[in-house]
Each structure stands twice: as C-alpha cells, then as structure tokens.
C-alpha cells in the first residue's frame, strides 16, 4: 500500500468527492493497483509526503497513431528518424529510437514520462487488426486500444447499396468491432478511399460513390453514427470528414455535422477540416464558424489535431488525400496502398514551417479552435500524432493554451500574413489546470466509457501523476515528478523505472451485442471475394496464437433492441 499525502488534487470528474467535502484534500491511498479508501490501521504502507504538489489521474490520448501497418511504413520511410532519440537497453527497458515515428518501446516510455498512461490507435484496418494488436502488445507498460476503420469497406457499401435495414448494418458493425477487438468505430473520408480505387480524386458529401451509385458519403456517415449509437457504444462515431486539408472544406464539415441528424458524432483532427478559401492565397481560417457549430450542437465532440512546426510524417487511411499531399512530401518519397477491399493507407513525410503561410495559419487555426470551443468536456487535446506533430509536443501545446502572453509571443514569430489572417492574437482565454485535466484525462475517460480511469475517485485504477513546480509550464507537463501506473511507480522526473519488472499494458476492447446471423452473410462474402479466409480475418478467438495479449473486454448495453 502507498499513501500519498499533502497534495493538491485536481479531479474534474469528482470535484465534490467525500475528501474534498470534508476539507481533507491531501490523501490518496493506493493498493493492489487501485485507489482505495483510507485504511483503519495501515500496515506495510509506504508514505510519501508530496509537499503540496498537484496530483491528477493518468492522461489519456484518444487519437494517436501508435500502431498498425501505416505506422510501420512510416518508420521505414523515416530513415533519418532512426538516429533520433536513440537509446540502448537499460535494465528491464528495451532499446528504441524515433522522434516522429517512435518504435514500440519509445512510444511507451515517452508517453509515460509525460504522465500519459493510455493511448488509442484511431485507424485500424480490419484486415490488419491482428498485426495492429501484435504491435500494440509490444508497446510496454501503456494501456491502449484501437478504433476499427469502416465506411470504405466493400461489404458495408454493398449493404448500403442494397438498402439493407439499419439493424443489419448494426449487426455488421457489431461483428466487425468484436472480430477486430476494437474500442470504437472510425470513418476515414467516407466513401473516398473506395472512390480513389476507381480513380476518383474527390468525393463530395452528396456525390454518389463510384460503383455504388445509390450510396453517398452522407448516408455512410448517418448509418454508422446510428449503428454506433444503437449498439450502445460510449464513444460516438469517430469521423475524419471528406475533403481533409482542402481550402474551403468548412462547408463539408458543417454539412457533415448536419448529416449526423443529431446522433452523437466525434469530429477528429478538426483543425484539418476548418479551412476557408478566402483571401489572395485562397486559404483562410474558418475556425470561428466551426467553433460556433460545435458550440451549438451538443451531440458533437471534437479533437483538434494541432500542428507544430518541424519534421514529421503524415500517415492516414485517406489514400485519396494523401496522394494529393504526396506533392509536398519532404523528403520526396511516399507510399500509398489500396488494402484488401477494406481501406487504404497513405504515408507522406512532411515538414511544417512557421514561415510558410499555410502551415503558419494551420497552427493558428488549431489554437483558435481550442480557444473558441467553449465546453472543455467536448474538446480533446491531440496532434493526430504524428500527422500534426509527434505527441511529445503536448507540454508545449498545453503551455500555449494556458499562457496568453506566451501564445502571443509565438504568434509574433510566424509568417506575417498568417498573423493577420487569424484572430488568435485577440483571444485572451487561458485554460486553467482544471480544464487541462478535463481535456487530457477526465474528458477522454468519460467519452470512452472508462469509468475506472481519468479520475482519482476511490475504486479508480491507480494511474496517477504528480506534478512538480518547474521554471515554465512546458517543463511542468513534460517532466512530472512521479507517474504511477496501476499503483506502481513507473516514471520519475521523465526517467522510466528500469530496475524491476513492471506490469505490462492492457488492450481495451468492446464486444457489442449483435445478431450472429450476420456472420453467415459475411462468410459468404469472404468465400466469394476475399483472398483471406473468414476464419482468419481479425482476431478470431479460435485462432489466437503466439504471445499472449492482456485484453480487457467492455460490454456495452444496446440502446435499440
């Protein structure tokens, strides 16, 4: 048992916990991986006086490309990245490397050093799910999960084309989630990845899909929003809209919000979808319009996908857009793949430059969204790692949100025309520590339905971060004094503990209730069209071999029978 005392608790999920009501805010007891009530007579207890330091729950990244085939391609393409942040094996810790494309060990150690104890891969291709889970299983210490990519898979498009009932779509979505052991459902460019395979280079929200002429992206968005809701998933449909990165895509984004028809909808990396086409450069910020729409549609949540200046790699399932982006590859190399009638991927190295007008304005647009969207429970802190920037820039991003003066100072250094094209300089909002805790742990835990995470309540998993005063807020969030995962100290001042065996990470997934008769239809499709057998697709429980993966299964309750 560990007793942390003399601390300042920041726990937005439970601001009126019993301890606070009683004015006793300075004690947390950890035992067997959980936060527990104060024992009557503590025995074998290690007591740690925190001297008034701030304590929060472990942070959770809801959208970070930490695994999967496209990230392996990214690692292979980013050859120079292999020389960055290289370290050898130390004690129990594996060796590693990588800045924009960290390998499995580096991913875990960098996240934990910053106080993140959980991260979710947001674009798992079904046919790659076995490999994705294997890779996530090799990420030590960090809890994780993945969202299954749908909306360009031919089985779904055939269901929609033949006007299948919503219930049948729900059953298929339920089967896919369960078979691939996913934690949520993602669409990348609804219909667009499939359209690119037919040589279409853009696809509007109401444009019929090639080959599937009765299907539009709007229908795909609506039917999957409904499926996710009716299956009872906590996390709404996770949507990467059509027209990512295209000037003027604000119209598509606003129309997509309407396409959900009030069903819960999560718009991911919203920064890339908040562009106007005004001005002589025909690229402008539409953050105010987008923020207003988010503020007035309570069914909508968002993560930002903030960019940071520097070198990274963009890796996405969106082959249509990534092929366009390949013209800007730096260095000049890219990979695009069509994948198994299931999806696709595009991997393009990229450098964001502060003296490039477009990049500079992208940076400002992301911050505008953070500052203009009012409800911190409906916005999440992401860089779409590594697409906007590696997740290691989070501490700097938090400082930008909390310190208006620092923000203005940074604004004054970007491309002059971009400074004039943004309202950022006029925004005085400063995020509080409490709001940062909402953005980075309480909010993510709540939207993911992880009741045992993201808070310091009694009974919660003891993922705990102790922050120490540092010269500036960036260091404060980059180097927490202590990070506990499941009640054990795993990092201290940015260094991972390496002299003892630490518990491995677990993979979260959900198993919705669905009508199993859909499996016969799916099997017939596989038998007829697929070069992989139905039995071998995803993670069929009858065919799990090799290194065990510690899974935690969640069972949502259907909202519609």
């Amino acid at each position: 048992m560990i007793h942390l005392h003399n601390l300042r608790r920041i726990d937005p999920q439970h601001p009126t916990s019993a301890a606070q009501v009683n004015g006793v805010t300075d004690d947390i007891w950890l035992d067997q991986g959980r936060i527990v009530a104060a024992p009557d007579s503590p025995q074998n207890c290690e007591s740690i006086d925190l001297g008034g330091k701030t304590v929060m729950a472990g942070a959770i990244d809801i959208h970070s490309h930490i695994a999967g085939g496209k990230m392996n391609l990214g690692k292979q393409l980013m050859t120079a990245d292999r020389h960055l942040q290289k370290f050898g094996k130390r004690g129990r810790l594996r060796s590693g490397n990588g800045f924009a494309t960290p390998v499995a060990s580096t991913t875990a150690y960098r996240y934990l050093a910053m106080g993140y104890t959980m991260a979710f891969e947001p674009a798992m291709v079904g046919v790659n799910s076995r490999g994705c889970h294997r890779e996530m299983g090799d990420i030590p210490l960090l809890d994780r999960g993945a969202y299954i990519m749908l909306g360009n898979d031919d089985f779904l498009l055939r269901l929609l084309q033949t006007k299948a009932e919503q219930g049948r779509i729900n059953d298929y979505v339920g089967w896919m989630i369960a078979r691939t052991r996913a934690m949520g459902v993602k669409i990348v460019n609804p219909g667009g990845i499939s359209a690119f395979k037919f040589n279409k280079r853009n696809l509007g929200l109401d444009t019929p899909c090639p080959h599937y002429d009765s299907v539009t992206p709007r229908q795909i968005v609506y039917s999957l929003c409904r499926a996710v809701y009716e299956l009872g998933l906590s996390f709404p449909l996770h949507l990467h809209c059509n027209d990512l990165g295209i000037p003027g895509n604000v119209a598509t984004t606003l129309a997509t919000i309407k396409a959900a028809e009030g069903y819960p909808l999560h718009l991911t990396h919203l920064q890339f979808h908040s562009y106007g086409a005004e001005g002589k450069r025909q690229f402008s910020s539409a953050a105010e319009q987008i923020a207003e729409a988010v503020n007035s549609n309570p069914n909508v949540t968002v993560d930002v996908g903030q960019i940071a200046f520097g070198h990274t790699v963009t890796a996405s399932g969106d082959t249509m857009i990534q092929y366009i982006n390949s013209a800007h590859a730096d260095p000049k190399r890219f990979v695009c793949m069509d994948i198994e009638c299931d999806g696709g991927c595009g991997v393009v190295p990229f450098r964001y430059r502060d003296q490039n007008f477009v990049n500079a304005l992208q940076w400002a647009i992301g911050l505008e969204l953070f500052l203009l969207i009012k409800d911190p429970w409906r916005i999440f802190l992401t860089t779409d790692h590594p697409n906007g920037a590696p997740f290691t820039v989070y501490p700097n991003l938090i400082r930008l949100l909390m310190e208006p003066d620092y923000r203005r100072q940074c604004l004054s250094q970007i491309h002059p025309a971009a400074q004039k094209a943004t309202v950022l300089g006029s925004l005085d909002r400063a995020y509080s520590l409490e709001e940062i805790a909402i953005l980075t742990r309480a909010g993510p835990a709540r939207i993911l339905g992880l009741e045992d995470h993201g808070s310091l309540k009694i009974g919660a998993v003891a993922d705990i971060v102790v922050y120490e005063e540092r010269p500036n807020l960036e260091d404060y969030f980059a180097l927490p004094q202590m990070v506990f995962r499941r009640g054990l100290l795993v990092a201290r001042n940015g260094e991972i503990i390496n002299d003892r065996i630490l518990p491995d990470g677990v993979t979260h997934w959900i198993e919705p209730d669905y009508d199993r008769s859909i499996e016969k239809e799916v099997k017939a499709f596989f038998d007829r069209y697929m070069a992989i057998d139905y039995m071998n697709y995803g993670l069929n429980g009858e065919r799990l071999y090799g290194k065990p993966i510690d899974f935690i299964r969640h069972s949502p309750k259907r909202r519609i029978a």
Partner: protein
Amino acid sequence: MITLNSPATPPATLHPDPISCPGCGLACDDLSWNDGHVDSRGCPIAADYFKPSHAAPMPHLFEGKPIDLNSALDFAASLIKVARMPIFIGGGCDIAGVQSLLALADSIGGVVDSRSRILPINMQVMQENGWIATTFSEVYNRADLVILIGGNPLPNWPRLLSRLVANHDSMFRTRPPQVLQLGTAIPPEQLPQGLDYQAITVEPSEILNTLSALTAHLKGGAWREASPVHPELLQLAERIKSAHYPVVIWDAANLCPTATESILAIDYLGEVIRLLTPSQRIVGLPLSSSDNAGGMASVMTWQTGFPNRLFYTPEGPESHRYRDQGLERVADGDADLLVWVSAITPYPMPEFKGQIIAIVGDDYPESELTRATVTLRVGRIGIDHGGEVGRSDSVVMIPVPAAFPTASTTERPRVDLVFNQILARLERSQGAIL
C-alpha cells in the same frame, strides 16, 4: 534421453479448417483436409510442406549426441553468454518466435538478419522512393490487366495466377484480367487453363534497359528521343493506359541478373507507376518474402525501426545497409556465434568457423547438423503448433493453425519458448538484470 512419441493423427474433428500454408509469402489459407491429407490445391510447396510424416520426434543434440531439452537450453545459453559477436539469422519461425528472438538479441547485443536477400531489395527502393502498391484481394477483385516483370514467378509463388488472377467471380470485373509478361515466358502447361496470357520476351540481362526505355517513353520529350522503344513496348504502354486497374507484379528474386540491377529495375517500375497515377490508377505488387521474412520485417520495424539487418549496440539498434548484412558477416568471420533459426523451410547453413546453435524443425537434414554445437529441434508452425506469419503484401498477418498438433514443452517446443527459456537462463546466471 527423453522418450519420444510418434505423433498420432488427431481425430478428423480436430483438424483445423481451413489450413494455412507458411511455405511462401502468398500464405494461402484456403487449404483443407482430404482423406487424411492436406489438399495442397496443386501447390508443390504446400504439398512438400504438409507431406505426411509419422517419424518420431528428432532429439535435441549437443555435439551430435542426443540430450534432453533442458540440457540443450543450458548449453545454448552458455554459448550465447560468452559470445563476443552473436549473429541471429531468421525468420524461419512465426511472429512469436521473432518477438522472442529480438528480446534475447536486445538483451545481449549482436546482429539480427533474415535469410532473405530479396526483401532488402524491395525495401531499399521503398525506403528511398516509396511506392504505390496493392494487396491480394484488390488484385482478385479489381485487376483488369496484370503485367508480370522478369522471370517465371510460379516456381517461387505457385498459386499466384491460379488463386489471385484467374478467378472468374469478382466484385468489379466480369472476367479474369489479361496477363502480359515482360521477361521470360511461363511454359504453357504451368498456366491456369483459359488464362489470356501473352509474353514479350526479354532476356534477364535486358530487363533493366527495357524498363529504362519504357520509363523514358512515358516521360516523353527528350527522354523519349534518348531511348527508342521497341514497338511491342509501345503497345504495352498503350494497353496499360487503357486499363482501369493494372497491376505490375515483380519477384525481386527473379528480375535481373544482379541485386543492383534489380534495385534499379524496381526503381523504374515505381517511376512508371508514379508517372501514370496522376491520370489513372496503376499499382504495384512486390513479391518479396517467404520463410516469414515479411513477418519478421514487420516485427523488427515496430520494435526497432529497421526492417532488416540490424545491430543491437549498447547505444541502441543500428543498421547499415552493407555492414550489418547477417550472412555476409557470417562469411567474413566477424561473428563468433551463429544462431540459425530455420523451422519453416529447411535452408542449408552457411559456411561458418565459429560455434553454431541450430534451431530447426524435424525435417532439417541431420547431415547439415554435424556442424552445429547445439541443436534444438523445435515444432514447425502449421504442423506441430499454431502461429502467425506475415503475407507478402505486408499488411496481412495470417494465423496458421496446427495441422498435426504434436508440439509439447519438451519435444518440438515452439521457437518463442526456446528463446524465452534461454533469456531466463541468462538472467538467472548473471544474478542481475539484463
């Protein structure tokens, strides 16, 4: 000496269905049981892989003498402990085996490489220029033109055409695609019946020049003038332009006389695809991995960032394209210990002056093992135990159930158990953390 039991044929109801074959990078997973045997669907590699074997498990060996598993592991650990420069050559095992191999190698240092000299050829081109590629089910459903480059791919990839190309039922095409080969013609008797196949005969030594000319033609202008194109190539270029989803397939093992020429040839193929993609779809399908070298490359990439040829140094994993080639280091005498993993296809061991630990399946020839100090006879994936392998199209990992499940913890153990046990012994012997 341990008692060895003959593997009993399990009851029919226990036979997995379907069966997956790890024999080549196609990893066909549509094989089935037929009258007590695995129906290989006409594939000689699968037929050989699953050929009936009722021999008793072969013993583990130390200096040629049978020993029990624990002793063999002890000897293996002691050799690894004192090695100055161990070198691990795989894949030859499933994904779990690769994971454990890397954990051990990371702990003690040394070089890790696959046997494949083909995968690095494709990988070098991809890492330097990228590519636009596709996967098997896309070929099956979309390809309306297949262009084979180089020699006859069927000896290495027996069901490439019969399984992925010659199908009549697909989502987006009404008949099998035309197949055009630029290279050495496939003998007619090897072709699937009724396939629309034509060859433009090009000698291996002329493949590079031919692709150079095709690229120049597609670039137009001065390029075209500099490199006149054979009329048949002009027709090929026009045929490609009229197709909806042409797929260019190459086997880097069967392309040009030398690896360097093959790299340049693949470079040209990537450029052809990139030149045409602004106006049409065209994709590549590189064939590059058997022996689970592709699966090994995936695990190595996500664990170290290097898909092949890495050196675990105290400062972290490093890789040099030429310096860290495992087989070359073996030949040069750089290494003093060779850990040879070959439990899928029994590849012969290279000449080596140092000590050898052989981790091999029961089908591995005894005559080869006289040079090994320690031999660990492990289970073979898909025969003795289940596992996973990477398919050649790189994004698909195929589960491989055990057709004759006979693996145990002492006889025919899994490769991952062997490496885990060796690592545990090293940790215990040091009394400290590795």
